[in-house]
């Protein structure tokens, strides 16, 4: 495949959807499979324009549904193509059957997720439930909190997923609207930088009539466990690769991200928010204001949830007295009867000698912005728990209580 046109570094004002499309262009993807659903549609449209304008030489396939979209992505990846796809909300759900086969056949397909609340009702807002419900299917997964980070995460995800030690698909997630449709300044790199960072993709065993191989054959039950173990190990082994790739990214592009956790104003903090994605933007402002008033509050933002950095979460969160998990997802009837992040946090902390109190906040549901005063309210709840040495209840629905 010919490489993308040489371009120089420049800063553009784009939203998260276009940033994702730009990343796919820089990655010089071979096959794009698409099916419209908002907010992901904006990425699909941007890519369609790039292909139509001749900026990107890729097969652009509009499928008849998300299930077909992911099936085609699977097939294309099996033939050795670098594949880009994406979806939102119920679209992510409709393709569910494909997630395990794609990771099971170790195809590093990349899927952009612009979160959307699941039905009912038909709501455009961002909840993380769509992608999170697929979190144990063997896909690398993490959230960006702005368009620049989304662009960077897409490039890094290809590099990580295509590493021969990993070979796993990636869901690169961003909040619908909050990232996908808010514009901000994004630095697009030199094409030379990307060439240095992301070598052309070569799958070790592509389908090729000249070199016949079998993919996904029917097997006997006793042949299953070794394959599952191998996939589980790939997920574990990816952790070292993820760290290495983040280092290399920082060296080449000059933006350094902690692969697992971003800490904001946690020095001297006693109560902290724990969340993923865009609401970190408002949380940072709220925390600055509360710090000005002397409140010891901080933010811990999870950047990668699969693989889950258990030890790192334990080490970081053990420093604090109270952890407030801002869910932005639904775990109906789950451990906390709130969201699914709570159990991930508590499980990581179980082995800690110094366990903080953990409370879950259902906020930003339906894609509502979590406003400043809600962060103040949640901080009050955490401080009350700290004072009393126990939580009032595991889950608070923010905006529905005094």
């Amino acid at each position, binding site marked *: 495949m010919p490489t993308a046109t040489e371009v120089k570094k420049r800063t553009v004002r784009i939203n998260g959807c276009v940033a994702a499309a730009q990343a796919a262009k820089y990655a010089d993807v071979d096959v794009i499979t698409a099916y419209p659903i908002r*907010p992901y549609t904006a990425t699909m449209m941007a890519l369609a324009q790039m292909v139509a304008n001749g900026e990107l030489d890729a097969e652009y396939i509009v499928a008849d549904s998300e299930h077909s979209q992911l099936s085609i992505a699977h097939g294309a990846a099996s033939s050795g193509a670098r594949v880009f796809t994406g979806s939102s909300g119920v679209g992510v759900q409709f393709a569910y059957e494909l997630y395990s086969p794609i990771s099971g056949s170790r195809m590093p397909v990349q899927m952009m997720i612009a979160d959307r609340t699941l039905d009912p009702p038909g709501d455009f*807002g961002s909840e993380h439930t769509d992608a999170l419900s697929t979190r144990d299917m063997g896909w690398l997964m993490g959230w960006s909190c702005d368009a620049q980070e989304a662009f960077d995460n897409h490039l890094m995800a290809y590099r990580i997923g295509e590493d021969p030690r990993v070979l796993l698909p990636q869901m690169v997630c961003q909040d619908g609207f909050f990232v996908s449709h808010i514009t901000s300044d994004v630095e697009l790199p030199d094409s030379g930088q990307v060439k240095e960072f992301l070598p052309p993709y070569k799958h070790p065993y592509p389908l090729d009539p000249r070199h016949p191989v079998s993919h996904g054959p029917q097997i006997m039950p006793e042949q299953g466990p070794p394959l599952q173990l191998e996939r589980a190990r790939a997920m574990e082994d990816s952790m070292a690769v993820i760290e290495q790739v983040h280092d290399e990214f920082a060296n080449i592009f000059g933006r350094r991200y902690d692969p697992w956790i971003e800490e904001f104003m946690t020095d001297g903090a006693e109560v902290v928010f724990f969340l993923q994605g865009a609401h970190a933007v408002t949380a940072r402002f709220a925390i600055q204001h509360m710090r000005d008033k002397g409140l010891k509050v901080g933010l811990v933002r999870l950047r990668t949830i699969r693989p889950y950095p258990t030890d790192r979460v334990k080490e970081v969160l053990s420093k604090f007295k109270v952890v407030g998990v801002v869910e932005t997802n639904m775990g109906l009837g789950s451990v906390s009867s709130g969201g699914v992040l709570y159990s991930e946090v508590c499980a990581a902390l179980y082995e800690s000698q110094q366990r903080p109190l953990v409370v879950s906040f259902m906020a930003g549901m339906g894609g509502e*912005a979590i406003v400043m005063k809600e962060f103040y309210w949640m901080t009050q709840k955490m401080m009350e728990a700290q004072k009393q040495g126990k939580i009032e209840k595991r889950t608070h629905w923010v905006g529905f209580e005094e």
Partner: protein
Amino acid sequence: MSYTELTVWTRGIIMDKEGRDIVNSVAASARLEGKFAQAMENYVDNPDRTNCPTRKYCRVSDSVIENELTYENEQPNIIVLVEGTMVKGWDYMRGMPPGGTLVINTHYTPEYMIRFVPGAERLAQLVCVDAAKLADHKWLYYRLGELGLDRLSTEGAAERNKSIAPDIAAPLIAAVVKTTGIVKMATIEPMIANKHAFRLALEELHIMPLNPVAA
């Protein structure tokens, strides 16, 4: 410190680009002037449904915008109705603090239109501009071909004319900038494709002064 909210009410698909052009050009101009600005123009209000009322938002501030993730403007200082009949039927004035500006695309006078405006006492001025006359009476006719494609929910991707404000948005932007000073005329004018209509509008605004805010 100044913080201004501009909300544009328009019609899905048929006047979607017109609404987008207003908020995008104002936000881009404000950023050129060193201010902080945001434009949100393609989300909650179903912009992919023909004729449905949809809103486009813009915020301009001297300091960093902390409510960046809040979609709707809660206290719009300036409201634009891209299509005149939108003046009736719903409360587009809600949240407007005293001293606001309402700009309507209509061939009627402000004296006639004010009877339909809910909560008009909050207005410092009502501005009427006959944008279709000043731009081109047939602007919508020329867009019919691409509007057909846009009905497939392409979110503007099928639009052939990528320039900013080639049609009725130009006089409406002129009306907003001249009567509110949200950005400088010299900053925004170079962005506008239909400069003729933009300049004509500066002379042909019908402005009705109402309740100025007490200093």
